[in-house]
């Protein structure tokens, strides 16, 4: 199950460009196109939102956490940077968060991503390699950043950020959809055999 998460929504517009591009709308469009292609290739897909709503971080995570074989992909567009770069992020914990929070093996909701950090980083690297082949100037490998949306996801989870809403013509961002979709589909296909079933 692929959980596609278009960032922001509703009153949370995300990044806004002087040319009129609005992150929440661009990523929703990306997510819809990605969903159609992934389903065509046989993936099961759900979206955390398919309209101009703004689910909370916990509600977004809960959609992924309801499935035992989910992969969470959050989509974002930056407000800065030269248009046409793609970066993938996995979550980064620190300060000695234990692998499990309790002796009974239960993991605290706020630390749900902790057991999946390595799996997420592997997925992020695979996606980054695929994206770098299609978005010139993108980094070769992913980096780990504490992206809030990923923290409570109990599944491999990444955030992809495309640059940027600074384009003069908002419609020009649509041109990034095909290479983005292809990269995500190829990355998930490569990763799929390694998707853990249940807790790792």
């Amino acid at each position, binding site marked *: 199950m692929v959980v596609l998460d278009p960032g922001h929504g509703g009153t949370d517009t*995300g990044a806004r460009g002087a040319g009129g591009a609005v992150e929440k709308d661009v990523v929703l469009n990306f997510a819809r196109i990605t969903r159609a292609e992934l389903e065509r290739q046989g993936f099961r897909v759900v979206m955390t939102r398919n309209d101009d709503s703004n689910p909370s971080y916990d509600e977004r995570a809960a959609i992924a956490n309801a499935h035992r074989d989910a992969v969470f992909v959050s989509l974002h567009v930056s407000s800065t940077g030269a248009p046409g770069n793609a970066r993938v992020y996995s979550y980064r914990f620190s*300060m*000695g968060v234990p692998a499990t929070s309790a002796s009974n093996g239960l993991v605290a909701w706020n630390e749900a991503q902790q057991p999946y950090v390595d799996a997420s980083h592997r997925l992020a690297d695979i996606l980054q390699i695929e994206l770098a082949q299609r978005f010139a100037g993108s980094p070769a490998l992913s980096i780990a950043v504490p992206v809030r949306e990923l923290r409570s996801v109990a599944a491999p989870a990444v955030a992809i950020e495309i640059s940027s809403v600074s384009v003069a013509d908002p419609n020009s961002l649509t041109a990034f959809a095909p290479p983005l979709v292809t990269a995500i589909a190829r990355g998930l296909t490569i990763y799929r055999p390694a998707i853990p079933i249940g807790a790792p």
Partner: protein
Amino acid sequence: MPRNLRIVLAILGAAVLVGLISLHSLNQRVEQFAETKVSDEQARRDLLAQPISTSSDAKVKASIFWAAGADKTTPVEVELDLSSNPTQRAKQVLRALVTDPPTPEQRTLPADATLLGFYILSDGTAIADFSQALASETPSGILSEEIAVNSIVQTLQGNVSSLRRLKILIHGQEVDTLAGHVDLTGFFDLSSPAQPGAAPGSAVSGPAAAGSSANSTSTAAAPQPRR
């Protein structure tokens, strides 16, 4: 023209005149209020941005981490008067980080952001309380927010010893994210030395869950760069 009509017209004319005078006066007062508000905010900013001097200040070469390109921070050596008191020293280097970037391209934090307070708890936890401008004027985006947070964390790591971890507050409040992406609900590790020129994500570590961090040790807290 009948006398009554002349009287009514005269009264109406007087009323219009009084109304116009009142409107003009009201407009002037509104403008005065607006000017006063701007000057108050400017005064607050100026006050908070004042150089911080203490009796223990000594000229030292400080490493301030500003942006180096779109996706990195790098230390720049600047000569600053720094206090031996860790709290004052932290305020001094963070003030320099906000106010003195060598070029606009190297800026990592909004020029309007001010450090409202800086506190160090007995367990080495540092709390940096920034004004709302840090959240509202940092460009929204994963990379831009990460650069902003990294510059704060690395500048503290590079210049103030004895700090273990950092909590960033916005106007006295804990917030979910800096500007919609980077998690500010936990703590940032300050116990590892700043790594010059490191890409975001490898030099500093992300927030830990507030509930579990109290049990962590500084050894466990030390991040291992992923690559």
